Protein backbone atom coordinates (compact mmCIF):
# COMPACT_ATOMS: atom_id res chain seq x y z
CA UNK A 1 0.00 0.00 0.00
CA UNK A 2 2.45 2.58 1.27
CA UNK A 3 5.13 1.28 -1.02
CA UNK A 4 2.99 1.83 -4.09
CA UNK A 5 1.93 5.21 -2.79
CA UNK A 6 5.56 6.25 -2.39
CA UNK A 7 6.38 5.02 -5.91
CA UNK A 8 3.51 6.81 -7.65
CA UNK A 9 3.83 9.89 -5.46
CA UNK A 10 7.56 9.81 -6.08
CA UNK A 11 7.04 9.77 -9.84
CA UNK A 12 4.62 12.71 -9.71
CA UNK A 13 6.96 14.66 -7.47
CA UNK A 14 9.96 13.44 -9.45
CA UNK A 15 8.66 15.11 -12.59
CA UNK A 16 8.93 18.38 -10.72
CA UNK A 17 12.47 17.50 -9.62
CA UNK A 18 13.33 16.72 -13.24
CA UNK A 19 12.37 20.24 -14.26
CA UNK A 20 14.15 21.59 -11.19
CA UNK A 21 17.42 20.08 -12.36
CA UNK A 22 17.18 20.24 -16.13
CA UNK A 23 17.79 24.01 -16.23
CA UNK A 24 21.08 23.60 -14.39
CA UNK A 25 22.15 21.07 -16.96
CA UNK A 26 21.17 23.34 -19.86
CA UNK A 27 23.16 26.26 -18.42
CA UNK A 28 26.13 23.93 -18.14
CA UNK A 29 25.45 23.16 -21.79
CA UNK A 30 27.73 24.70 -24.34
CA UNK A 31 30.11 26.69 -22.19
CA UNK A 32 30.60 24.36 -19.21
CA UNK A 33 29.27 26.96 -16.79
CA UNK A 34 28.28 25.77 -13.32
CA UNK A 35 25.35 27.92 -12.27
CA UNK A 36 25.48 28.01 -8.49
CA UNK A 37 22.78 30.69 -8.62
CA UNK A 38 20.38 28.11 -10.09
CA UNK A 39 18.33 27.86 -6.91
CA UNK A 40 18.09 31.62 -6.77
CA UNK A 41 16.70 31.81 -10.30
CA UNK A 42 14.12 29.24 -9.17
CA UNK A 43 13.37 31.47 -6.20
CA UNK A 44 12.87 34.46 -8.51
CA UNK A 45 10.49 32.35 -10.62
CA UNK A 46 8.47 31.72 -7.48
CA UNK A 47 8.24 35.42 -6.69
CA UNK A 48 7.29 36.01 -10.31
CA UNK A 49 4.36 33.64 -9.97
CA UNK A 50 3.35 35.25 -6.69
CA UNK A 51 3.37 38.77 -8.16
CA UNK A 52 1.51 37.65 -11.28
CA UNK A 53 -1.17 35.96 -9.19
CA UNK A 54 -1.71 38.72 -6.66
CA UNK A 55 -1.19 41.75 -8.92
CA UNK A 56 -2.74 40.55 -12.17
CA UNK A 57 -4.77 37.53 -11.00
CA UNK A 58 -2.94 35.28 -13.43
CA UNK A 59 -3.15 31.55 -12.80
CA UNK A 60 0.18 29.90 -11.95
CA UNK A 61 -0.40 27.52 -14.87
CA UNK A 62 -0.30 30.50 -17.22
CA UNK A 63 2.57 32.08 -15.30
CA UNK A 64 4.68 29.06 -16.14
CA UNK A 65 4.58 30.24 -19.75
CA UNK A 66 4.79 33.97 -19.03
CA UNK A 67 8.09 33.71 -17.13
CA UNK A 68 9.80 31.99 -20.08
CA UNK A 69 10.46 34.91 -22.46
CA UNK A 70 11.45 37.23 -19.61
CA UNK A 71 14.07 34.86 -18.25
CA UNK A 72 15.39 33.86 -21.68
CA UNK A 73 16.19 37.52 -22.37
CA UNK A 74 17.66 37.94 -18.89
CA UNK A 75 19.84 34.88 -19.21
CA UNK A 76 20.96 35.82 -22.70
CA UNK A 77 22.00 39.29 -21.52
CA UNK A 78 23.89 37.92 -18.55
CA UNK A 79 25.63 35.37 -20.71
CA UNK A 80 26.84 37.98 -23.19
CA UNK A 81 28.09 40.05 -20.26
CA UNK A 82 30.17 37.43 -18.50
CA UNK A 83 30.95 34.63 -20.94
CA UNK A 84 33.66 36.40 -22.99
CA UNK A 85 35.81 37.12 -19.92
CA UNK A 86 35.06 33.81 -18.27
CA UNK A 87 35.92 31.67 -21.26
CA UNK A 88 39.23 33.45 -21.73
CA UNK A 89 40.47 32.33 -18.31
CA UNK A 90 42.55 29.27 -17.62
CA UNK A 91 39.85 27.26 -15.85
CA UNK A 92 36.40 28.56 -16.81
CA UNK A 93 34.52 25.74 -15.11
CA UNK A 94 36.08 26.47 -11.71
CA UNK A 95 35.86 30.23 -12.06
CA UNK A 96 32.21 30.05 -13.14
CA UNK A 97 31.51 28.12 -9.96
CA UNK A 98 32.89 30.98 -7.88
CA UNK A 99 31.40 33.71 -10.05
CA UNK A 100 27.90 32.28 -9.87
CA UNK A 101 28.30 31.74 -6.20
CA UNK A 102 28.86 35.49 -5.87
CA UNK A 103 25.86 36.13 -8.08
CA UNK A 104 23.78 33.88 -5.86
CA UNK A 105 24.67 36.00 -2.84
CA UNK A 106 23.76 39.17 -4.73
CA UNK A 107 20.39 37.80 -5.84
CA UNK A 108 19.60 36.56 -2.33
CA UNK A 109 20.48 39.91 -0.76
CA UNK A 110 18.45 41.85 -3.31
CA UNK A 111 15.49 39.50 -2.99
CA UNK A 112 15.32 39.94 0.76
CA UNK A 113 15.53 43.72 0.33
CA UNK A 114 12.79 43.77 -2.30
CA UNK A 115 10.43 41.00 -1.17
CA UNK A 116 11.09 40.96 2.58
CA UNK A 117 12.10 37.96 4.62
CA UNK A 118 8.79 36.23 5.23
CA UNK A 119 7.95 33.28 3.02
CA UNK A 120 5.16 33.92 0.52
CA UNK A 121 2.71 31.27 -0.55
CA UNK A 122 -0.01 30.91 -3.14
CA UNK A 123 -3.43 29.68 -2.07
CA UNK A 124 -4.10 25.99 -2.62
CA UNK A 125 -7.14 26.85 -4.73
CA UNK A 126 -5.18 28.95 -7.22
CA UNK A 127 -4.80 25.68 -9.13
CA UNK A 128 -7.33 22.84 -9.50
CA UNK A 129 -7.95 21.22 -6.12
CA UNK A 130 -9.46 17.81 -6.83
CA UNK A 131 -7.34 14.83 -5.92
CA UNK A 132 -6.08 12.29 -8.39
CA UNK A 133 -7.28 8.80 -7.45
CA UNK A 134 -5.13 5.93 -8.71
CA UNK A 135 -5.49 2.32 -7.59
CA UNK A 136 -7.70 3.37 -4.72
CA UNK A 137 -5.32 5.94 -3.30
CA UNK A 138 -5.64 9.71 -3.57
CA UNK A 139 -2.76 11.97 -4.56
CA UNK A 140 -2.66 15.63 -3.70
CA UNK A 141 -3.69 18.08 -6.39
CA UNK A 142 -0.37 19.91 -6.11
CA UNK A 143 1.46 16.83 -7.29
CA UNK A 144 -0.57 15.82 -10.30
CA UNK A 145 -1.27 19.36 -11.52
CA UNK A 146 2.39 20.28 -11.42
CA UNK A 147 3.33 17.01 -13.11
CA UNK A 148 0.77 17.49 -15.87
CA UNK A 149 1.97 21.02 -16.60
CA UNK A 150 5.65 20.10 -16.44
CA UNK A 151 5.52 16.93 -18.58
CA UNK A 152 4.39 18.70 -21.79
CA UNK A 153 6.87 21.48 -21.05
CA UNK A 154 9.72 18.99 -20.90
CA UNK A 155 8.36 17.33 -24.05
CA UNK A 156 8.37 20.65 -25.92
CA UNK A 157 11.91 21.27 -24.75
CA UNK A 158 13.08 17.92 -26.06
CA UNK A 159 11.35 18.53 -29.39
CA UNK A 160 12.98 21.94 -29.56
CA UNK A 161 16.38 20.41 -28.93
CA UNK A 162 16.00 17.61 -31.45
CA UNK A 163 13.73 18.92 -34.17
CA UNK A 164 14.17 22.67 -34.59
CA UNK A 165 16.93 24.51 -36.38
CA UNK A 166 18.10 26.37 -33.29
CA UNK A 167 18.06 23.12 -31.35
CA UNK A 168 20.24 21.43 -33.91
CA UNK A 169 22.64 24.36 -33.86
CA UNK A 170 22.77 24.12 -30.08
CA UNK A 171 23.67 20.47 -30.29
CA UNK A 172 26.30 21.20 -32.90
CA UNK A 173 27.91 23.82 -30.67
CA UNK A 174 27.84 21.51 -27.65
CA UNK A 175 29.51 18.66 -29.50
CA UNK A 176 32.16 20.81 -31.16
CA UNK A 177 32.19 24.59 -30.99
CA UNK A 178 35.01 25.00 -33.47
CA UNK A 179 33.48 22.81 -36.11
CA UNK A 180 30.12 24.49 -35.60
CA UNK A 181 31.76 27.86 -36.20
CA UNK A 182 33.29 26.53 -39.41
CA UNK A 183 29.82 25.45 -40.48
CA UNK A 184 28.70 29.06 -40.11
CA UNK A 185 26.94 28.81 -36.76
CA UNK A 186 27.24 31.85 -34.51
CA UNK A 187 28.35 29.89 -31.46
CA UNK A 188 28.29 32.86 -29.09
CA UNK A 189 24.71 33.73 -29.93
CA UNK A 190 23.53 30.13 -29.85
CA UNK A 191 25.28 29.48 -26.52
CA UNK A 192 23.73 32.64 -25.11
CA UNK A 193 20.23 31.61 -26.16
CA UNK A 194 20.67 28.13 -24.75
CA UNK A 195 21.93 29.62 -21.50
CA UNK A 196 18.81 31.80 -21.38
CA UNK A 197 16.63 28.73 -21.93
CA UNK A 198 18.32 27.16 -18.92
CA UNK A 199 17.30 30.15 -16.84
CA UNK A 200 13.76 29.93 -18.21
CA UNK A 201 13.43 26.27 -17.22
CA UNK A 202 14.63 27.19 -13.74
CA UNK A 203 12.06 29.95 -13.48
CA UNK A 204 9.29 27.56 -14.58
CA UNK A 205 10.37 25.16 -11.86
CA UNK A 206 10.21 28.11 -9.46
CA UNK A 207 6.53 28.68 -10.21
CA UNK A 208 5.77 25.12 -9.09
CA UNK A 209 8.26 25.24 -6.27
CA UNK A 210 5.88 27.63 -4.53
CA UNK A 211 3.41 24.74 -4.28
CA UNK A 212 5.80 21.85 -3.74
CA UNK A 213 7.80 23.68 -1.08
CA UNK A 214 4.74 25.36 0.41
CA UNK A 215 6.06 28.86 -0.28
CA UNK A 216 8.96 30.89 -1.56
CA UNK A 217 11.54 32.74 0.52
CA UNK A 218 14.73 34.64 -0.34
CA UNK A 219 17.07 32.16 1.35
CA UNK A 220 15.79 28.95 -0.25
CA UNK A 221 18.19 29.03 -3.23
CA UNK A 222 21.39 27.25 -2.13
CA UNK A 223 19.63 24.15 -0.80
CA UNK A 224 17.71 23.81 -4.07
CA UNK A 225 20.93 24.19 -6.04
CA UNK A 226 22.51 21.30 -4.15
CA UNK A 227 19.48 19.08 -4.80
CA UNK A 228 19.50 19.99 -8.49
CA UNK A 229 23.21 19.31 -8.68
CA UNK A 230 22.77 15.92 -7.05
CA UNK A 231 20.19 15.05 -9.69
CA UNK A 232 22.27 16.10 -12.70
CA UNK A 233 25.36 14.35 -11.38
CA UNK A 234 23.25 11.23 -10.90
CA UNK A 235 21.87 11.45 -14.42
CA UNK A 236 25.17 12.48 -16.07
CA UNK A 237 26.20 16.07 -16.53
CA UNK A 238 25.17 17.39 -19.91
CA UNK A 239 22.64 14.64 -20.61
CA UNK A 240 19.11 16.04 -20.76
CA UNK A 241 17.21 12.78 -20.85
CA UNK A 242 19.46 11.43 -18.12
CA UNK A 243 18.58 14.39 -15.93
CA UNK A 244 14.86 13.85 -16.41
CA UNK A 245 15.07 10.17 -15.53
CA UNK A 246 17.34 10.96 -12.58
CA UNK A 247 14.83 13.53 -11.30
CA UNK A 248 12.06 10.95 -11.29
CA UNK A 249 14.26 8.38 -9.56
CA UNK A 250 15.26 10.98 -7.00
CA UNK A 251 11.57 11.68 -6.31
CA UNK A 252 10.93 7.98 -5.72
CA UNK A 253 13.96 7.58 -3.42
CA UNK A 254 12.95 10.62 -1.42
CA UNK A 255 9.40 9.40 -0.95
CA UNK A 256 10.54 5.91 0.02
CA UNK A 257 12.89 7.47 2.57
CA UNK A 258 9.99 9.48 4.00
CA UNK A 259 7.99 6.31 4.46
CA UNK A 260 10.67 4.06 5.91
CA UNK A 261 13.35 6.30 7.43
CA UNK A 262 11.79 9.75 7.81
CA UNK A 263 14.39 11.28 10.11
CA UNK A 264 17.15 10.47 7.61
CA UNK A 265 15.26 11.63 4.53
CA UNK A 266 17.37 14.75 4.03
CA UNK A 267 20.37 12.53 3.42
CA UNK A 268 18.93 11.29 0.11
CA UNK A 269 20.44 13.93 -2.20
CA UNK A 270 23.83 13.82 -0.48
CA UNK A 271 24.09 10.07 -0.49
CA UNK A 272 22.97 10.04 -4.10
CA UNK A 273 25.63 12.52 -5.17
CA UNK A 274 28.47 10.89 -3.22
CA UNK A 275 27.53 7.39 -4.27
CA UNK A 276 27.28 8.37 -7.91
CA UNK A 277 30.58 10.19 -7.86
CA UNK A 278 32.39 7.30 -6.25
CA UNK A 279 30.75 4.36 -7.95
CA UNK A 280 29.93 5.66 -11.38
CA UNK A 281 31.34 9.19 -11.78
CA UNK A 282 29.99 9.52 -15.30
CA UNK A 283 26.42 9.12 -14.00
CA UNK A 284 23.62 6.82 -15.07
CA UNK A 285 23.70 7.80 -18.73
CA UNK A 286 27.25 9.00 -19.16
CA UNK A 287 29.90 7.48 -21.30
CA UNK A 288 33.14 6.47 -19.68
CA UNK A 289 35.36 8.94 -21.50
CA UNK A 290 34.26 12.03 -19.61
CA UNK A 291 36.49 12.85 -16.69
CA UNK A 292 34.09 13.61 -13.92
Amino acid sequence: MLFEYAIIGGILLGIFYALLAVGLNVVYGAQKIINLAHGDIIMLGGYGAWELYYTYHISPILSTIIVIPITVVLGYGLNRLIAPRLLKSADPEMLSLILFFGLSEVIEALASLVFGNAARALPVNSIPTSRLVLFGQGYSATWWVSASVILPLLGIFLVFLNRTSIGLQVRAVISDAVEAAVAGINAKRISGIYFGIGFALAACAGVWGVFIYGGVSPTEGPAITVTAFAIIVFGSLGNTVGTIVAGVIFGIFYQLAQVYIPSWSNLVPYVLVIATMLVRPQGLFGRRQRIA
Partner: protein
Amino acid sequence: MPKLDEIDRTLETESKGKRLISPAVAALVPVVVFAVGVHIYSNELLLTYMAIYIALAQGINIIYGFTGYLPFGYFGFFGVGAYASGLAMLDYNVPPVLAVVIGGVAAALVGALLLPLFRLRGAYFAIGTLAASEAIYAIVSNPSLQSITNGPYGLNLAAYYSSGTAYGTAIALAAIAILAASYVRSSKFGLTLKAIRDDSYSASMSGVNVPRQRFYAWLIAAAIAGMGGSIFGWSTSVFYPQAVFDSSLSVLAIVFALFGGVGTVWGPTVGTVVLYAIYNAIGVSNPQYFQLIYGLVIVLLVLFAPRGLAGLRQIKSRRATTVGAKND
Protein backbone atom coordinates in the same frame (compact mmCIF):
# COMPACT_ATOMS: atom_id res chain seq x y z
CA MET B 1 55.68 50.69 -3.21
CA PRO B 2 55.50 47.53 -1.13
CA LYS B 3 55.55 44.40 -3.20
CA LEU B 4 54.15 41.49 -1.29
CA ASP B 5 54.33 39.23 -4.19
CA GLU B 6 57.85 40.08 -5.03
CA ILE B 7 58.86 38.50 -1.77
CA ASP B 8 56.93 35.43 -2.67
CA ARG B 9 58.29 35.24 -6.15
CA THR B 10 61.88 35.91 -5.29
CA LEU B 11 61.63 33.45 -2.46
CA GLU B 12 62.26 30.58 -4.81
CA THR B 13 65.64 31.89 -5.80
CA GLU B 14 66.63 33.09 -2.37
CA SER B 15 69.04 31.37 -0.04
CA LYS B 16 67.77 28.92 2.50
CA GLY B 17 68.39 31.32 5.39
CA LYS B 18 66.03 33.87 3.93
CA ARG B 19 63.51 31.16 3.26
CA LEU B 20 63.17 30.62 6.95
CA ILE B 21 62.93 34.29 7.85
CA SER B 22 60.07 35.18 5.55
CA PRO B 23 57.57 32.63 6.93
CA ALA B 24 58.57 33.59 10.45
CA VAL B 25 57.72 37.20 9.72
CA ALA B 26 54.45 36.18 8.08
CA ALA B 27 53.44 34.28 11.22
CA LEU B 28 54.90 36.67 13.76
CA VAL B 29 53.25 39.86 12.55
CA PRO B 30 49.70 38.59 13.12
CA VAL B 31 50.67 37.15 16.49
CA VAL B 32 52.09 40.44 17.69
CA VAL B 33 49.21 42.44 16.25
CA PHE B 34 46.63 40.15 17.85
CA ALA B 35 48.44 40.16 21.19
CA VAL B 36 48.61 43.96 21.23
CA GLY B 37 45.26 44.44 19.50
CA VAL B 38 43.19 43.00 22.31
CA HIS B 39 44.42 45.74 24.63
CA ILE B 40 43.34 48.40 22.17
CA TYR B 41 40.09 46.80 21.14
CA SER B 42 38.60 44.56 23.77
CA ASN B 43 36.01 42.58 21.79
CA GLU B 44 38.08 39.49 22.32
CA LEU B 45 35.58 37.10 20.77
CA LEU B 46 35.60 39.04 17.52
CA LEU B 47 39.39 38.86 17.46
CA THR B 48 39.25 35.15 18.29
CA TYR B 49 36.95 34.55 15.33
CA MET B 50 39.19 36.68 13.14
CA ALA B 51 42.19 34.53 14.05
CA ILE B 52 40.13 31.39 13.35
CA TYR B 53 39.14 32.79 9.97
CA ILE B 54 42.79 33.51 9.15
CA ALA B 55 43.51 29.85 9.87
CA LEU B 56 40.54 28.74 7.73
CA ALA B 57 41.54 31.02 4.86
CA GLN B 58 45.07 29.60 5.03
CA GLY B 59 43.58 26.10 5.05
CA ILE B 60 41.71 26.94 1.84
CA ASN B 61 44.95 28.38 0.56
CA ILE B 62 46.81 25.15 1.24
CA ILE B 63 44.29 22.95 -0.51
CA TYR B 64 42.93 25.21 -3.23
CA GLY B 65 45.79 27.65 -3.71
CA PHE B 66 48.41 24.98 -4.15
CA THR B 67 46.47 22.05 -5.60
CA GLY B 68 43.49 23.63 -7.38
CA TYR B 69 40.94 21.53 -5.47
CA LEU B 70 38.27 23.81 -4.00
CA PRO B 71 36.46 22.25 -1.02
CA PHE B 72 33.02 23.84 -0.73
CA GLY B 73 32.34 21.52 2.16
CA TYR B 74 35.28 22.76 4.19
CA PHE B 75 32.88 23.58 7.03
CA GLY B 76 32.38 19.86 7.61
CA PHE B 77 35.84 19.60 9.18
CA PHE B 78 35.09 22.65 11.27
CA GLY B 79 31.97 21.00 12.68
CA VAL B 80 33.70 17.66 13.19
CA GLY B 81 36.43 19.44 15.16
CA ALA B 82 33.94 21.36 17.29
CA TYR B 83 32.07 18.17 18.14
CA ALA B 84 35.11 15.94 18.66
CA SER B 85 36.76 18.42 21.02
CA GLY B 86 33.51 19.29 22.78
CA LEU B 87 32.69 15.65 23.40
CA ALA B 88 36.27 15.00 24.54
CA MET B 89 35.82 17.70 27.16
CA LEU B 90 32.35 16.64 28.22
CA ASP B 91 32.76 12.85 28.17
CA TYR B 92 36.42 12.42 29.14
CA ASN B 93 37.16 15.71 30.86
CA VAL B 94 40.07 16.38 28.53
CA PRO B 95 41.68 19.81 29.10
CA PRO B 96 40.49 22.25 26.40
CA VAL B 97 43.83 22.88 24.68
CA LEU B 98 44.40 19.15 24.30
CA ALA B 99 40.80 18.80 23.14
CA VAL B 100 41.56 21.30 20.37
CA VAL B 101 44.32 19.01 19.15
CA ILE B 102 41.93 16.07 19.31
CA GLY B 103 39.48 18.08 17.22
CA GLY B 104 42.21 18.57 14.63
CA VAL B 105 43.07 14.89 14.59
CA ALA B 106 39.42 13.88 14.25
CA ALA B 107 38.98 16.24 11.31
CA ALA B 108 42.12 14.86 9.66
CA LEU B 109 40.73 11.33 10.08
CA VAL B 110 37.50 12.38 8.41
CA GLY B 111 39.66 13.96 5.73
CA ALA B 112 41.42 10.65 5.17
CA LEU B 113 38.03 8.97 4.95
CA LEU B 114 36.97 11.40 2.25
CA LEU B 115 40.08 10.77 0.21
CA PRO B 116 38.18 8.99 -2.60
CA LEU B 117 36.66 12.37 -3.44
CA PHE B 118 40.00 13.21 -5.09
CA ARG B 119 38.96 10.97 -7.91
CA LEU B 120 36.76 13.90 -8.86
CA ARG B 121 37.98 17.06 -10.49
CA GLY B 122 37.06 20.72 -10.43
CA ALA B 123 33.46 21.47 -9.76
CA TYR B 124 32.69 17.83 -9.00
CA PHE B 125 35.15 17.83 -6.16
CA ALA B 126 33.73 21.09 -4.82
CA ILE B 127 30.17 19.78 -4.81
CA GLY B 128 31.25 16.34 -3.61
CA THR B 129 32.81 17.80 -0.46
CA LEU B 130 29.73 19.93 0.08
CA ALA B 131 27.48 16.88 -0.09
CA ALA B 132 29.79 14.98 2.26
CA SER B 133 29.75 17.76 4.82
CA GLU B 134 25.99 18.14 4.68
CA ALA B 135 25.72 14.39 5.20
CA ILE B 136 28.00 14.55 8.25
CA TYR B 137 25.87 17.37 9.62
CA ALA B 138 22.69 15.36 9.09
CA ILE B 139 24.22 12.39 10.89
CA VAL B 140 25.66 14.31 13.87
CA SER B 141 22.41 16.19 14.48
CA ASN B 142 20.13 13.19 14.05
CA PRO B 143 18.09 12.42 17.18
CA SER B 144 18.91 8.71 16.94
CA LEU B 145 22.48 9.58 17.88
CA GLN B 146 21.42 11.60 20.89
CA SER B 147 23.27 9.31 23.28
CA ILE B 148 26.55 10.05 21.51
CA THR B 149 26.36 13.54 20.03
CA ASN B 150 23.35 14.86 21.93
CA GLY B 151 21.63 15.06 18.53
CA PRO B 152 19.83 18.31 17.79
CA TYR B 153 20.31 19.62 21.32
CA GLY B 154 23.85 20.87 20.80
CA LEU B 155 26.65 21.05 23.35
CA ASN B 156 27.12 23.19 26.42
CA LEU B 157 30.78 23.70 27.27
CA ALA B 158 30.18 26.55 29.73
CA ALA B 159 32.14 24.69 32.40
CA TYR B 160 35.29 24.93 30.26
CA TYR B 161 34.81 28.51 29.16
CA SER B 162 38.01 30.54 29.31
CA SER B 163 38.08 33.39 26.83
CA GLY B 164 41.75 34.32 27.41
CA THR B 165 43.15 30.84 26.80
CA ALA B 166 40.85 30.32 23.83
CA TYR B 167 42.08 33.58 22.36
CA GLY B 168 45.72 32.58 22.82
CA THR B 169 45.04 29.20 21.21
CA ALA B 170 43.32 30.86 18.27
CA ILE B 171 46.33 33.12 17.69
CA ALA B 172 48.62 30.10 17.87
CA LEU B 173 46.45 28.28 15.35
CA ALA B 174 46.56 31.23 12.96
CA ALA B 175 50.36 31.26 13.22
CA ILE B 176 50.56 27.49 12.67
CA ALA B 177 48.31 27.76 9.62
CA ILE B 178 50.43 30.54 8.14
CA LEU B 179 53.61 28.56 8.73
CA ALA B 180 52.01 25.49 7.18
CA ALA B 181 51.01 27.49 4.11
CA SER B 182 54.49 28.94 3.70
CA TYR B 183 55.99 25.51 4.20
CA VAL B 184 53.80 23.98 1.52
CA ARG B 185 54.58 26.88 -0.76
CA SER B 186 58.34 26.65 -0.46
CA SER B 187 58.48 22.87 -0.38
CA LYS B 188 59.47 20.96 -3.45
CA PHE B 189 55.83 19.97 -3.76
CA GLY B 190 54.64 23.59 -3.81
CA LEU B 191 57.25 24.61 -6.34
CA THR B 192 56.44 21.65 -8.55
CA LEU B 193 52.76 22.48 -8.48
CA LYS B 194 53.47 26.07 -9.38
CA ALA B 195 55.64 24.87 -12.23
CA ILE B 196 52.89 22.55 -13.41
CA ARG B 197 50.42 25.40 -13.22
CA ASP B 198 52.70 27.60 -15.26
CA ASP B 199 52.84 24.83 -17.84
CA SER B 200 56.60 24.68 -17.98
CA TYR B 201 57.02 21.42 -16.18
CA SER B 202 55.43 18.08 -15.89
CA ALA B 203 54.84 16.32 -12.61
CA SER B 204 56.35 13.09 -13.81
CA MET B 205 59.61 14.88 -14.57
CA SER B 206 59.91 16.39 -11.12
CA GLY B 207 60.06 13.18 -9.16
CA VAL B 208 57.36 14.49 -6.82
CA ASN B 209 54.56 12.08 -5.99
CA VAL B 210 51.78 14.61 -6.54
CA PRO B 211 48.83 12.54 -5.26
CA ARG B 212 50.62 11.69 -2.04
CA GLN B 213 51.72 15.26 -1.43
CA ARG B 214 48.21 16.45 -2.22
CA PHE B 215 46.91 14.00 0.36
CA TYR B 216 49.21 15.53 2.98
CA ALA B 217 48.07 19.02 2.03
CA TRP B 218 44.47 17.86 2.37
CA LEU B 219 45.09 16.39 5.83
CA ILE B 220 46.82 19.58 6.99
CA ALA B 221 43.93 21.69 5.69
CA ALA B 222 41.41 19.40 7.40
CA ALA B 223 43.29 19.48 10.70
CA ILE B 224 43.46 23.27 10.61
CA ALA B 225 39.69 23.50 10.08
CA GLY B 226 39.11 20.93 12.83
CA MET B 227 41.18 22.90 15.30
CA GLY B 228 39.48 26.10 14.18
CA GLY B 229 36.11 24.50 14.86
CA SER B 230 37.31 23.26 18.24
CA ILE B 231 38.36 26.74 19.32
CA PHE B 232 35.17 28.17 17.91
CA GLY B 233 33.04 25.73 19.88
CA TRP B 234 35.08 26.25 23.01
CA SER B 235 34.96 30.06 22.85
CA THR B 236 31.27 30.13 21.88
CA SER B 237 30.68 27.46 24.51
CA VAL B 238 26.94 26.86 23.97
CA PHE B 239 26.22 25.84 20.39
CA TYR B 240 23.76 23.94 18.24
CA PRO B 241 24.88 21.73 15.35
CA GLN B 242 23.77 24.28 12.78
CA ALA B 243 26.15 26.88 14.23
CA VAL B 244 29.26 24.76 13.59
CA PHE B 245 28.05 22.97 10.44
CA ASP B 246 27.33 26.25 8.74
CA SER B 247 28.12 26.39 5.04
CA SER B 248 28.66 30.14 5.27
CA LEU B 249 31.85 29.35 7.19
CA SER B 250 33.44 27.84 4.08
CA VAL B 251 31.95 30.60 2.01
CA LEU B 252 33.61 33.31 4.07
CA ALA B 253 36.92 31.46 4.26
CA ILE B 254 36.95 31.01 0.49
CA VAL B 255 36.05 34.62 -0.14
CA PHE B 256 38.69 35.87 2.28
CA ALA B 257 41.36 33.69 0.69
CA LEU B 258 40.38 34.61 -2.87
CA PHE B 259 40.18 38.27 -2.01
CA GLY B 260 43.70 38.30 -0.64
CA GLY B 261 45.00 36.00 -3.31
CA VAL B 262 45.50 32.26 -3.06
CA GLY B 263 48.85 30.67 -3.72
CA THR B 264 50.62 33.36 -1.72
CA VAL B 265 51.47 33.37 1.98
CA TRP B 266 50.31 36.86 2.88
CA GLY B 267 47.21 37.01 0.69
CA PRO B 268 44.74 35.01 2.82
CA THR B 269 45.86 36.72 6.02
CA VAL B 270 45.48 40.21 4.61
CA GLY B 271 42.24 39.25 2.86
CA THR B 272 40.73 37.95 6.09
CA VAL B 273 41.77 40.91 8.22
CA VAL B 274 40.49 43.48 5.75
CA LEU B 275 37.22 41.79 4.82
CA TYR B 276 36.35 40.53 8.30
CA ALA B 277 37.00 43.98 9.76
CA ILE B 278 34.76 45.52 7.10
CA TYR B 279 32.18 42.82 7.69
CA ASN B 280 31.98 43.71 11.35
CA ALA B 281 32.14 47.44 10.77
CA ILE B 282 29.16 47.16 8.42
CA GLY B 283 27.63 44.46 10.59
CA VAL B 284 27.46 46.83 13.50
CA SER B 285 25.18 49.04 11.47
CA ASN B 286 23.58 46.87 8.82
CA PRO B 287 25.20 43.66 7.57
CA GLN B 288 22.39 43.03 5.13
CA TYR B 289 24.34 45.06 2.63
CA PHE B 290 27.41 43.00 3.35
CA GLN B 291 25.97 39.98 1.60
CA LEU B 292 25.27 42.20 -1.38
CA ILE B 293 28.72 43.77 -1.25
CA TYR B 294 30.69 40.57 -0.87
CA GLY B 295 28.61 38.92 -3.58
CA LEU B 296 29.57 41.77 -5.90
CA VAL B 297 33.20 41.58 -4.75
CA ILE B 298 33.32 37.92 -5.76
CA VAL B 299 31.77 38.61 -9.16
CA LEU B 300 34.17 41.44 -9.86
CA LEU B 301 37.16 39.48 -8.58
CA VAL B 302 36.46 36.57 -10.87
CA LEU B 303 35.95 38.80 -13.87
CA PHE B 304 38.70 41.32 -13.34
CA ALA B 305 41.19 40.00 -10.78
CA PRO B 306 41.07 36.22 -10.59
CA ARG B 307 44.22 36.23 -8.49
CA GLY B 308 43.02 38.56 -5.74
CA LEU B 309 44.78 41.51 -4.13
CA ALA B 310 48.11 39.79 -4.60
CA GLY B 311 47.36 39.42 -8.30
CA LEU B 312 46.53 43.12 -8.61
CA ARG B 313 49.89 44.02 -7.12
CA GLN B 314 51.58 41.60 -9.43
CA ILE B 315 50.04 43.15 -12.50
CA LYS B 316 51.01 46.62 -11.31
CA SER B 317 54.56 45.69 -10.56
CA ARG B 318 54.86 43.82 -13.81
CA ARG B 319 53.67 46.83 -15.71
CA ALA B 320 56.06 49.04 -13.82
CA THR B 321 59.03 46.88 -14.55
CA THR B 322 57.75 46.05 -18.04
CA VAL B 323 58.11 42.40 -17.44
CA GLY B 324 56.07 40.63 -20.08
CA ALA B 325 52.61 40.19 -18.53
CA LYS B 326 51.48 36.67 -19.12
CA ASN B 327 47.81 36.45 -18.36
CA ASP B 328 46.73 33.32 -16.58
